[in-house]
């Protein structure tokens, strides 16, 4: 058995490419060398694998070909495919084939390493020479060390600026060789060093989650601390955090302090340089911020007519008008209407152009600076919530209303322009908007009238409800057919039907509904337009009609079930005593209508035929 180290030396790989390689390398290695690596080293300048115990000889291979009796027809083609003469084919168990004796490991390593390099596939790849290889960034060296002998390449390379060509004396000592050359090859170890360094400073945060990238931005970890002039604390906090995190991959420490990770360099020089860069960015943001504030949020709102919201859907001013209408229909008060007027104003600001992820938040800050009440500014801040699966909902009533109005408009506009999500493609985030709207109604308790949603949108939104509730899908489908006037009502009906599914009342209603539906549903065309009491001849049918008049199914679902269930015995008697399909056409039509009325009255609680019994 032998140990083998394979190293692919690259120009700086993006963190995403490192992660892709990390996922693919074990399976690739297994395919090429028969076993997954015992150690994997992933970082910006090298991908490496080590096998502790590989057989020194590859196994014999038998490439099975055509059956012997097809020798005439198929042997030549098979032999050619495998690069041998027909005479070299061997017979085994009635089949022709090629015997490939095992080869010494050291002979196969070069081709297997090459196959691993070519086998990696990256979501973004490039070429850089005429080798035909595509990779995330250029591969500049490969190295294979078998035990203590380099069988591909001659050297590795240490830290880009503090070391040079580096002999790897044996596969087992790979990490030690690199560490002596200022490279930490183990990603997990780099992460630990970074976190330890940050913990030693204390109070760090990483709201944008840059740590995973930073691990692959350095080969040698140096955690440093810096600060910036306190005057920049007048900027909206998230602007400062975004400048630190998205632009510079720093970790905020609170106040005017930050931590960051360098790949080396003189601590004082590097710290001073980074402080200078951040202050420059914040200074630039201050210029932009101050210009916006001088303009003011009201003037920004007036500029929205010149900014297209969406091709075919007018400007942001048009969107604002639609939002105001929706807010009224959702019962929003004065503050919410004011918030609707200002909701998109920050789309005209320079700061949102620089920090697009901070839309809403920046508008809220500008509204506060302009002296608008907190009910207005917090609604601006919350208008895009919830913006992720399980993300927080708006806390204020005005925020909930604006958030719902925004989602309804986005959905209605997109659908009217024919932009429906298809398969996994949902470029306008319509699924997220629909789920968000449901959550505002169900978890946020916001009354969202179903009549506000165009039919197609309503179906799309309510289908998303099916996955959101505890009640199984058939109960939600049943409830969607109910007369519940709002999205939250649909959810409550579904939940109540589900909870009552074992009750006698539920059973009574379900049976009555099903019987009425089964018999009369298909014959609806033959039914009278309305019940004519004069045509009700039998006691049983008069009793049913009287009972139906007493039934009250709107309001609380449990009470409605109790009320609806009073029809169950009447229905039973009706079916025992009355022949629906009377010879007299008028009587028959009248009875069909009576049954349909029963079904439709109970149907206001939902379509019970969706729920199997």
């Amino acid at each position, binding site marked *: 058995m032998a140990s083998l180290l394979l190293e692919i030396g690259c*120009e*700086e790989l*993006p*963190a*995403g490419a490192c992660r892709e390689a990390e996922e693919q390398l074990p399976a690739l290695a297994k395919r090429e060398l028969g076993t997954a690596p015992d150690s994997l080293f992933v970082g*910006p300048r090298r991908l490496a694998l080590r096998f502790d115990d590989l057989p020194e000889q590859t196994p014999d291979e038998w490439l099975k070909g055509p059956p012997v009796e097809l020798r005439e027809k198929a042997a030549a083609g098979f032999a050619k495919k495998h690069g041998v003469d027909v005479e070299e084919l061997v017979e085994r168990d009635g089949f022709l084939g090629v015997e490939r004796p095992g080869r010494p490991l050291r002979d196969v390593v070069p081709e297997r390493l090459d196959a691993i390099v070519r086998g990696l596939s990256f979501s*973004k790849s*490039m*070429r*850089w*020479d005429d080798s035909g290889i595509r990779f*995330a*960034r*250029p591969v*500049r060296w490969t190295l294979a060390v078998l035990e203590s002998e380099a069988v591909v390449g001659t050297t590795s390379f240490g830290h*880009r*600026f*503090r070391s040079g060509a580096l002999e790897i004396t044996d596969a087992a000592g790979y990490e030690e060789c690199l560490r002596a050359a200022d490279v930490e090859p183990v990603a997990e170890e780099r992460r630990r060093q970074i976190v330890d360094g940050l913990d030693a400073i204390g109070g760090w945060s990483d709201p944008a989650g840059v740590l995973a990238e930073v691990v692959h*931005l*350095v080969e040698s970890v*140096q955690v440093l601390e810096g600060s910036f002039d306190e005057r920049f604390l007048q900027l909206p906090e998230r602007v400062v955090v975004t400048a630190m995190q998205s632009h*510079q991959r720093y970790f905020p420490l609170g106040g005017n302090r930050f931590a*960051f990770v*360098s*790949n*080396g*360099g*003189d601590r004082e*020089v*590097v710290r*001073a*340089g*980074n402080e*200078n*860069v*951040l*202050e*420059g960015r914040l*200074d*630039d943001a201050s*210029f*932009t911020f101050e210009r916006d504030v001088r303009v003011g949020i009201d003037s920004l709102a007036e500029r929205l007519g*010149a*900014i*297209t919201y969406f*091709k075919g859907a007018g400007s942001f001013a048009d969107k604002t008008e639609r939002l105001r209408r929706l807010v009224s229909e959702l019962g929003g008060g004065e503050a919410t209407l004011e918030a609707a007027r200002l909701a998109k104003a920050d789309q005209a600001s320079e700061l949102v152009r620089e920090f697009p992820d901070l839309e809403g938040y920046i508008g809220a800050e500008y509204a506060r600076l302009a002296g608008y009440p907190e009910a207005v500014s917090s609604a601006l801040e919350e208008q895009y919530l919830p913006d992720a699966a399980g993300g927080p909902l708006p806390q204020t009533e005005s925020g909930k209303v604006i958030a719902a109005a925004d989602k309804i408009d986005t959905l209605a506009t997109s659908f009217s322009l024919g932009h429906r999500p298809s398969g996994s493609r949902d470029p306008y985030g319509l699924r997220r908007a629909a789920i968000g709207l449901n959550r505002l109604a169900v978890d946020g308790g916001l009354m969202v009238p179903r009549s506000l949603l165009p039919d197609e949108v309503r179906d799309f939104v309510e289908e998303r409800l099916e996955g959101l509730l505890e009640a199984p899908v058939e109960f939600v489908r049943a409830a969607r057919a109910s007369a519940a006037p709002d999205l939250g009502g649909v959810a409550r009906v579904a939940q109540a039907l589900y909870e009552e599914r074992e009750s006698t009342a539920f059973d009574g209603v379900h049976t009555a509904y099903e019987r009425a539906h089964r018999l009369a549903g298909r014959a609806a065309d033959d039914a009278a337009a309305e019940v004519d009491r004069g045509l009700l001849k039998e006691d049983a049918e008069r009793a049913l009609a009287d009972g139906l008049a007493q039934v009250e199914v709107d309001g609380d679902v449990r009470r409605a079930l109790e009320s609806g269930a009073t029809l169950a015995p009447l229905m039973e008697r009706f079916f025992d005593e009355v022949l629906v399909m009377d010879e007299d056409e008028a009587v028959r039509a009248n009875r069909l209508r009576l049954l349909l009325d029963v079904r439709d009255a109970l149907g206001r609680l939902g379509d019970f035929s969706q729920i199997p019994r």
Partner: protein
Amino acid sequence: MAVPTYQDTIRALEGYWADYGCVLMQPYHTELAAGTMNPATFLRSLGASPWKTAYVEPVIRPLDGRYGENPYRFQHYFQYQVVIKPAPSDVLDLYFGSLEAIGIDLQRHDVRLVEDDWEQPTLGAWGLGWEVWCDGMEITQWTYFQQLGGFDVELVPAEITYGLERLAMFLQGKRSAFELEWAPGVSWGDVYRESEREWSTYNFELAPVEVLARRFGEHEEECGVLLERELPLPAYDQVLKASHTFNLLDARGALSATERAAYIGRVRTLAREVARVYLEREADGVAAA
């Protein structure tokens, strides 16, 4: 080492890349939004002929002007552009050598390559590379071109674009480009601040929208005529002029998002056609640009 002036830094880069064997070109004669658009980069990077060049390029970006008030934003500034085609395998080391040549001690500073995927829709161009950070400051954009004018490159060039103001701010320890020492006793602001104010006024307030819209159409048309005559080099100038005209219209706020996308599409179509004719001509054995 003494703190280098702005022009010292340019001279050091010129010297370094000339010694390497680059053809030192001069800035192009019409407005460009990036050194990449100079035919010495865009056209020469197409086709199978090797090419090495380095030059200063003034870049004109009307939308980025701030009337000379913001020390980080200008409608006119400078790039130092290097193109090496095909990129040799030690091209990164060559680049790091240039940093040492302008006085950056690679041991003392933290120089890093951070993923940056470059795309220029108006030129139908993209490539992969990095932004180069020096102590957190982005001093260079580094790209291996993959496609230009919609065509795969035959020999992959390395494009190295130094942001000269940022680089000089870093080297001189200045927080404002206006304060950079251009030559002894003369600042960058002395040379260009008034220019920023006047050009911002023109770009944002006075550039004549109807005239520009008409000119765009004229450049487009002229480009077509020149391509029919198989003259891709003058045709390419019309692409550049159309592109700059579009940038001015954009700065005037005269374009809706839809119109904007349409203009970009029109410039891209022209750039593709020029690239196609340029490549056909090269295939016929006519010398490059």
